Every structure is written in structure tokens, then in C-alpha cells.
């Protein structure tokens, strides 16, 4: 596992293992590497992993950050690098087991370095172009041209087939339901389908619907051909031309 070594003059003061969490360095005591020295800003710098690389970044400190004697704002780190903050030195000791521990439960808190800003028109266009290219690669586009429908396979409903047209499709006894279920003691809202940017999601109402025989937990994305069961009603979710 990789680690940082905090060094002052000739002695190593501390060893800090590196995980997925960013490591903060500064004078304030709540830093991962607190350095009690006036030349060090409260939140001076941080080291973190981005896209598999170790990165050091100056957090707008007063006296700056030196990587191998060159002042840097932000730089990639490699084994053996030396970071100088005030009079303290931080050595990068990267071992060869590249896999970082999966710290899935606790979020690696990334301090907001920059103020919130909005992409300008040029940047936004670039993103849209990237999105279009990614869309072509995964060939998502054909499905978008097709209309999602619900076909009734079994049960008492007011129609045999429905188009899922709106953002919200209610399945139940309610007057506002798209798929109106008949019969006594049928819940007003038995289940619901929500349209999101990336697809259609089935959610519960006063019943927990099943998809392909499995009861859902939370909003569950529907795939072409899925079998939905709500009480005694069975519906087939299909994209049609």
C-alpha cells in the first residue's frame, strides 16, 4: 500500500497510509497531517487519487507548495517524490500493489476547492459532443425512437394496451390512473412508473409490484419485455415502433 512520510530535518515524524480518501495537510488540527508551524496555512494542501493517479494540490495556501523544489499548484505524484510545505517534507512512498482499498461505505470527502461555477457555452457544447459520441458507441439511440407500452396479459383493466406517455404513469383504481384497475378493494395507487432521463422506473404504490417474479425494492429500471405483476394484474412492458 502507498503511504506518505512526514519528515522534519532528519527524522520521520509520521507515516500516513493512502486510501481512497483525500489526505489533507495544514495547520488546523483536523487535517489528516496537521503541521503546527506558522509557515503552514490552516488547510494548506491535499493529496488524493484521481483517475488512478496520485495528485497533490495547493489549497490556495499563503506560502505555497514545492514538489522536488519546484513550486506547483497541482501535480501528479510518483514514488520517491518530495513535497515541501514550510520546513516540513513529505515523501511519497508508493508500493507496487496498485489496488487501493475499497472504502465503499464512507465517502471520501472531497473539499470544494473551487467556488461553484457554471460551464460556459463553449464547454457545454463540448460536453454535448462527447455525449453524442458516447451515445453512438453504445448505440442507445434506437430505443429512444420507440414508444414504451404496457400490454395487459391478465387481470381486470379498462384497456388492453396503454402507451406510457407521461413522466408519471399511475397503475391503480384512482381516477387519475393511466392504467385503471377494476374491482373492489383495489388500491387507488397500486404502483407507478416514472420516466427519467435514462429510462423508465417502476415504483411501489399501496402494493409492491414484481418484475419478472421478483418484488421490487425502491425504484427499479424497466427493460424491454419485462413482466410486471401488480396484485392479480400482469402487464408486459414493451417498446414498440
Amino acid at each position, binding site marked *: 500500500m502507498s503511504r506518505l512520510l512526514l519528515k522534519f530535518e532528519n527524522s520521520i515524524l509520521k507515516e500516513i497510509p493512502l486510501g481512497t480518501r483525500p489526505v489533507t495537510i495544514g495547520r488546523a488540527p483536523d487535517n489528516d497531517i496537521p503541521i503546527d508551524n506558522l509557515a503552514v496555512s490552516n488547510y494548506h494542501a491535499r493529496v488524493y487519487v484521481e483517475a488512478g493517479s496520485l495528485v497533490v494540490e495547493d489549497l490556495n495556501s499563503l506560502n505555497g507548495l514545492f514538489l522536488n523544489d519546484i513550486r506547483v499548484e497541482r501535480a501528479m505524484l510518483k514514488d520517491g517524490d518530495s513535497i515541501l510545505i514550510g520546513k516540513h517534507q513529505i515523501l511519497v512512498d508508493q508500493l507496487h500493489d496498485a489496488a487501493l482499498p475499497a472504502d465503499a461505505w464512507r465517502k471520501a470527502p472531497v473539499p470544494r476547492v473551487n467556488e461553484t461555477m457554471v460551464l460556459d457555452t463553449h464547454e457545454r457544447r463540448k460536453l454535448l459532443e462527447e455525449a453524442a459520441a458516447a451515445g453512438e458507441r453504445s448505440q442507445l439511440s434506437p430505443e429512444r425512437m420507440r414508444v414504451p407500452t404496457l400490454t395487459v396479459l391478465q387481470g381486470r383493466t379498462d384497456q388492453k394496451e396503454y402507451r406510457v406517455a407521461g*413522466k408519471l404513469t399511475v397503475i391503480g383504481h384512482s381516477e387519475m390512473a393511466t392504467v385503471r384497475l377494476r374491482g373492489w378493494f383495489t388500491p387507488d395507487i397500486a404502483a407507478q412508473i416514472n420516466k427519467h432521463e435514462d429510462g423508465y422506473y417502476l415504483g411501489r404504490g399501496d402494493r409492491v409490484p414484481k418484475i419478472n417474479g421478483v418484488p421490487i425494492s425502491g425504484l427499479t429500471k424497466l427493460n424491454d419485455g419485462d413482466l410486471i405483476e401488480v396484485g392479480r394484474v400482469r402487464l408486459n412492458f414493451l417498446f414498440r415502433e
Partner: protein
Amino acid sequence: MRFLLRIQTGARTDLGRVRKNNEDSFHLEPSLQLYVLSDGMGGEAHGEVASNLAVQTIVTHCQQSENSRATPTFGDAQPDVSERTNRLASAIHLANRKVFEMAAANPEKKGMGATIVAAWIEGQRLSLAHVGDSRAYLLRAGTLDQLTADHSLVAEKVRIGILTPQEADASELQSVLTRAVGTNANVQVDSNEQMLLVGDTLLLCSDGLNRMVTDPEIASTLLTSTSAQEAADRLIELANEYGGMDNVSVIVLRVTQKSDGVLDRLKVWKRNSG
């Protein structure tokens, strides 16, 4: 519709532990069952001005449209959502215009803007609209789902599949939004709907919460709090405990009871008739 949900509310905003001003704003309007939260941006105190103006504009516009159906609408109405949801989106379009005009008229306020997440409940139906990276979550039957998709550079890249969620979490570009209220003459508003159920908890929050606290921690806090206000307080405390890197605001809405429903009346009738 004769169904009325009872909504228990809790809300709080906090400076966090790093920032010097609180640029978040929120407003609860129980008379309309309208709840709005905003995270402002822009130097000096302009973020606060932007978020406050946006929130007030939305509440006022929704109030006016309740009083008079002739209230003008702003932005294009979407055919796939209800009139009420379109009205909420219209309020955000108006807020966009107001913030944009204020920034244009005051050169020192250039670049100011705000996120918005707004929930409006009518009967059992929740109308939801948002711009930016403030979120709405729904806790239902123990499962937490995010109902909004962040309009941030990293989130959009994750959605189109050119960035992994892990890379997004570690990215220094998390503060870059792809949309905000007030930074352009026009804005694209996302809106959606959901039928609420008794027992649901809806959470609106600024990114100061979800950047510091994980979804499982949010879920367990909502589940184990005895009231909406307690949940709001505990979420803020958690965000601060984990560093409080940003302002943090939360609105917690608990759907506690349905009154005057057909089923309730039927139960009463059954009980009375023995």
C-alpha cells in the same frame, strides 16, 4: 381528489465549518404544501442574494397562480407533466429571469446564480422541479432513491458513461455545474412527478449534505429519527462532523397521515357496523 396528506416538516441550514457566509436559502410554505431550497453562487454576498431572490420569486409566483389561473407562465410547458408541475417549472423560469436581470443590471454581481430544488404537493401527487446539483431523495419502505439528476459536469459525464462514479467522487471538478438559475437568459428546468404514500420521507438538500454524507448514512438517519426536525438536525450535524466543507441545508418532509380517504371512511364504517 379528496385525499389529503399530512406533511410533517423539518428544516435547517448551516454555515458548515469552512465557509464564511451561508449562500443557501430555503422556504417552507405549508399553506401551499410548497417547499423550495436553493444554493447560491457568486463572490462576496451575491450567492445569498441570488438564492434568496430565486426562492422568494418561486414562492410568490406559485402563490399568485393559486389565487388566479390567469397568472402568466414562463418557459415552454411540457406535455408529459401535469399543469401543476408545469406551473412549478414556470416559477423557476421566472426566478431565472429575475436573477439574470439583477446580475445584468449590477456589474459587480456578474456571474451570480443559484441551484433550485422545489417540491409542490397537491393531493397525493408530488411535483418536483430542479436546476443544478441540489437534490431530492425519496425514502420509501426503507429504500432511499435519488429523484433528481445533478446538473453538474461530473454527474453528466457519469450518465453518458465517460466517467465512473468513483472518479466523479474524487474529481476536483465537482463544483462545475452545467446548469444554474440566473447565469443565462434562459434555463432548462427538469421536472418530474411521483405519487406520495403514507410513510414516505422526502428530503431536499444542498450539495453540502451529499458531498459529506453517504446515501446509506442519509437513509439510516431518516429512518431512525423520531421527527422530521430531528432528522434535519442530525443530517446537518453529520455533514459538519465529516468536515462541513460547504454550507448545508436540508428540508425533510414526512408523509404521516392521510385523512378523509375513501378507505379510511370505509374502515370507520366497518368498525362502527361491528
